[in-house]
């Protein structure tokens, strides 16, 4: 059944490469979509700290991107330590269907501007988000720009 205005749902597979959608293609979409939803990060963001104030420079999440979807709390607790927390761990898809998200994995990678010093970031998973600790390789607390991903 071809696509378009004369081919309403439910969709019937078939047709040609220019006007339809055949079963093997649909099957590959189904298989690969399941694969992708297993491994895609829930959220990735980059932040920086200046004078004790956290700036989330970019925020990409499965719920949405940008300032409207950002954390409820992004706080610098002191040099080299920031919390990123949500008030609730339920998130909605584009249809308003809400499901809980529990942080199970996290990676944090500090950015380096023009060479030394080199920074180290570690993560501390929370029920409501994550804490990021950063320091130089010499062991001094520091606030580099950091990119973080959570699963």
């Amino acid at each position, binding site marked *: 059944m*071809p*696509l*378009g*205005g*004369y*081919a*309403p*749902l439910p*969709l019937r597979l078939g047709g040609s*490469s*220019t*006007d339809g*959608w*055949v*079963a*093997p*293609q*649909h*099957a*590959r*979409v*189904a*298989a*690969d*979509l*399941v*694969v*992708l939803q*297993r*491994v*895609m*990060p829930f959220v990735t963001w980059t932040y920086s700290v200046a004078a004790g104030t956290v700036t989330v420079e970019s925020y990409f999440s499965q719920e949405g991107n940008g300032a409207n979807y950002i954390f409820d709390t992004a706080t610098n607790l002191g040099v*080299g*330590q920031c919390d990123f927390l949500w008030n609730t761990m339920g998130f909605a898809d584009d249809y308003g269907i809400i499901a809980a998200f529990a942080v*199970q*994995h*996290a*990676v*944090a*990678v500090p950015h380096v501007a023009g060479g030394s010093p080199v920074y*180290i*970031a*570690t*993560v*501390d*998973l929370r029920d409501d988000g994550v804490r990021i*600790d*950063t*320091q130089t*390789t*010499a*062991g001094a607390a520091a606030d580099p720009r950091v990119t973080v*991903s959570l*699963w």
Partner: protein
Amino acid sequence: MTTPSGTPAWARANDHTTYGGDLNKENYMGIGIVDAQTDVGAEQLCRMAADMSAMIKVAPFAVITYLNRDTAVAAPLVESVMMQTGVTGASYEGDTPPAGFPTAAYVSAGISTFTFDASYSDAYSVAAAWTPSSAIATCHDIPGDMVNVSISGSVVTCEVVVGSTGNPDSNVRSTLVVW
């Protein structure tokens, strides 16, 4: 049984045509979507196909959080794995993984290896070879610790060290992401 077109996502070879896209795709008789609640248009299918192709190019193959058990001289405890081929429901002893999940081994203080299979199959039993190409890792809970990651064949080696000294650190939890 239908055999899906193309290859499993981790082969990273599928383009938009695998998923039903076509540069010349068009709506039947040139009639576009009449009712958005019942119709799927050619342009929407092409967007889906193009975005699927984009995502499979960059999606991680595996995300693993594990706990080294150096004091016990034991294989790491693999606490959670999210792989393109499956997700663990519970932690496992690194040296006795469930079928399809990587083996984790103790090497020496702070050093663990993760060994993957050479090939994996999708939900339709279509197999594709895979070897790790890139990996990053972050330590949990111990400020100043870091993970040096290296890859050889199907084995990813993670070395947890104290960043300021380079000395190995023991019994540390880390997250590893592999492409």
